[in-house]
């Protein structure tokens, strides 16, 4: 297992990592490099990668515990059982054609949003926070489904990512018929 925290600084992720005392690589991605490479638009996102370095389960939503099950409706056991069976070699992963069919690939707007995010992140690290906020907002308009941008940049815009502005954003998103989490159907 490799975990990647998509956070504005290592210090944001530090309390969780130190409490978990992981034995696996537990990495920090302040620049959203992983999000850009894998088209990650929300957390948690998981992928399975086999011994040959091939994606055998594309971006999916899975939790390690049932802490948020009452909100998400996603139970941890389903993924954990499938994962264990794959790791033990009791099942094979999805065929390549199915993996491709289940993949969600980035659009031009997604990549433009990531460029706006990249400029915003650079400006933020320069202390130019007002200019950064404008680019984060623009990025969110370009990719409204990308919560690594819309929610993930809230701490860099002085907004509580668990607070009323998040709940308002989520409410509007869901009311418009959009899911916050998009787990794979199989």
């Amino acid at each position: 297992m490799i975990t990647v925290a998509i956070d504005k600084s290592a210090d944001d992720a530090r309390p969780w990592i130190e409490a978990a005392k992981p034995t696996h690589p537990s990495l920090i991605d302040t620049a959203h490099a992983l999000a850009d490479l894998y088209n990650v638009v929300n957390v948690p996102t998981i992928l399975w990668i086999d011994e040959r370095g091939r994606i055998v389960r594309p971006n999916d939503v899975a939790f390690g515990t049932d802490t948020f099950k009452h909100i998400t409706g996603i139970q941890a056991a389903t993924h954990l059982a499938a994962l264990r069976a794959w790791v033990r070699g009791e099942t094979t992963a999805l065929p390549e054609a199915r993996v491709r069919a289940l993949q969600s690939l980035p659009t031009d707007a997604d990549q433009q949003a990531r460029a706006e995010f990249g400029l915003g992140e650079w400006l933020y690290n320069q202390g130019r926070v007002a200019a950064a906020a404008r680019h984060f907002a623009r990025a969110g308009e370009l990719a409204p489904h990308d919560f690594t941008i819309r929610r993930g940049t809230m701490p860099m815009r002085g907004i509580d990512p668990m607070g009323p502005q998040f709940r308002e954003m989520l409410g509007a998103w869901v009311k418009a018929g959009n899911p916050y989490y998009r787990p794979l159907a199989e």
Partner: protein
Amino acid sequence: MAGTKFTVIDAGRSVELDEADGIARATRAEASGRPAAIDRAERAAYLGVSAAERAKALSSLEAPDFTLPDLDGQAHTLSAYRGRKVLLVAYASW
């Protein structure tokens, strides 16, 4: 007279150019299909990677390689784990 400096961030590296050169570089990147975020007032541009390039890499099913630091700043590279099954988990504190 020195022109106003303009920062171009390209592939994670930032370079300082004269303003006209910086904007020209960003414009060329856009013309070649790459996303570019340009802020003339802040004298900076960020050049990203095109959707076509990212989509091609992902559709190949070859897991895109990356190197990221842990809390101690030690770098880890995905491809170093070849030969083992990897569960890759993206999460966040927010």
